[in-house]
């Protein structure tokens, strides 16, 4: 059973490959330069974007965060050594086993989601993404209106509308 008082960071997964990495390899990445504050959380929950077909636009999974590392993208993804951001630094969140939420949390009105900071007790009972909104810091400050930063936007976290541009 997850700790109901534990803090949760909801982050975006917008490719099945990244979800496979989380499930099979137990890690998730966030660019250091654009990471939310606060970031430290007991759990990471995953918001699935349009790339997930029937399962899209909902938080369905979470995992416990065990520890953090800072690594270059090329170390994390050695198969992409020539990626434009290969030398950029990323926080790598090392995760426990991926868990399915008994009740997925759909987003009925927001489609542009990046990071939302919440708590596990909210995540377990929310019926809509709006119900996750918490008051801690500004981790959810991009979730409604912020445009993508010029030249920024790692595909794993940027709003899906711009996915084609910033992948």
């Amino acid at each position, binding site marked *: 059973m997850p700790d109901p008082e534990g803090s949760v960071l909801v982050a975006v997964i917008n490719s099945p490959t990244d979800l496979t990495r989380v499930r099979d390899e137990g890690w998730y990445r966030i660019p250091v330069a654009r990471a939310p504050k606060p970031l430290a959380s007991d759990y990471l929950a995953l918001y699935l974007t349009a790339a997930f077909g029937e399962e899209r636009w909902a938080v369905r999974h979470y995992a416990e965060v065990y520890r953090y*590392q800072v690594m270059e993208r090329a170390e994390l993804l050695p198969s992409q050594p020539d990626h434009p951001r290969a030398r950029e630094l990323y926080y790598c969140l090392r995760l426990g086993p991926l868990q399915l939420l008994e009740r997925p949390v759909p987003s009925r009105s927001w489609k542009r989601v990046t990071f939302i900071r919440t708590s596990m007790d909210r995540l377990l009972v929310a019926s809509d993404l709006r119900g996750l909104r918490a008051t801690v810091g500004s981790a959810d400050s991009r979730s409604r209106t912020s445009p993508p930063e010029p030249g920024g936007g790692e595909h794993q976290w940027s709003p899906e509308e711009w996915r084609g541009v910033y992948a």
Partner: protein
Amino acid sequence: MRLGTGPRLLSCPELRTYDTRLPAQRRHLSVSLMCLRDLLAQELRLGIHFYRMSSHLIPMPDAADPTAALRQMEECRGLLRCLGEEVKRTDIRLTVHPMLQVQLGSRDPRLVRQGLAAAETWARVMEGMGLGPEARVVVHVGGGAAPSALDAFAENSELLSDQARDRLAIENDDRAHSLDDVLRLSARVGMPVVFDYLHWRCTGRGGSGLEEALAAAFETWPDGVRPKVHFSSPSTGRAGRPPRLGEHGDYLDPFAFEDFLAAMPRRVVADVMLEAKAKDLALLKLRRDLDGRLDRRRTSLEAAYA
């Protein structure tokens, strides 16, 4: 002048810091470092550039697994460097006050070993972050009131690496070791003195005024390294319970602080760590209290004494 606070920030209680002494709160060092990153971000939002880290933030070497702390520090090299870059970029001064862990004046070999290990570990963390000489590990003499504690401190500090010795600063106590004691010790061991205002009042002034006391403490700091001082106001008790002499109050007396600032040597800029139970709320209140009283041409308390 920077005003500082920490480790907890009451303006944002959701931001936590783990206590590695407690089994239920034991986390990998990287988790504590990420919590530190979040706390520093909150400090910056409040315009605070001086932070006291929790002395229990990092796992200490222990008998059960003596290499665990070193192993975790090695695993966190990238994270420490990244966090240090952020600290330098945003001009935050970091210090730590492991007053129970480091008691080099003790004659108990177990306490001495523990203190040496803690000082070395903190020095390694600061080096790993690439922090300059303003980042300090502030310690008390330890070892009780016996005059021999000063000798023990001097002898035991010889066992430290240069890296660890260069990070230590000695604070005057509220009971055992007065400002005069630690000034004499400082001259012996070459470590600077962190002047604590409330402790200085508790032990008696040793025949000197505040200006002379501050000047003597500031003299112990190396050229180019900004001295650090502690300021607090005494508690007046709570709900009928009388306070212990020297107990910190929730907030800070702005009039006493004005006198404190006025006594600072004119040519030296120091950073002031505020020790109040209301933490950052007390700092913000002090700023509000004093900003309105300063010359209107000056824009803020800290700028006036920069």
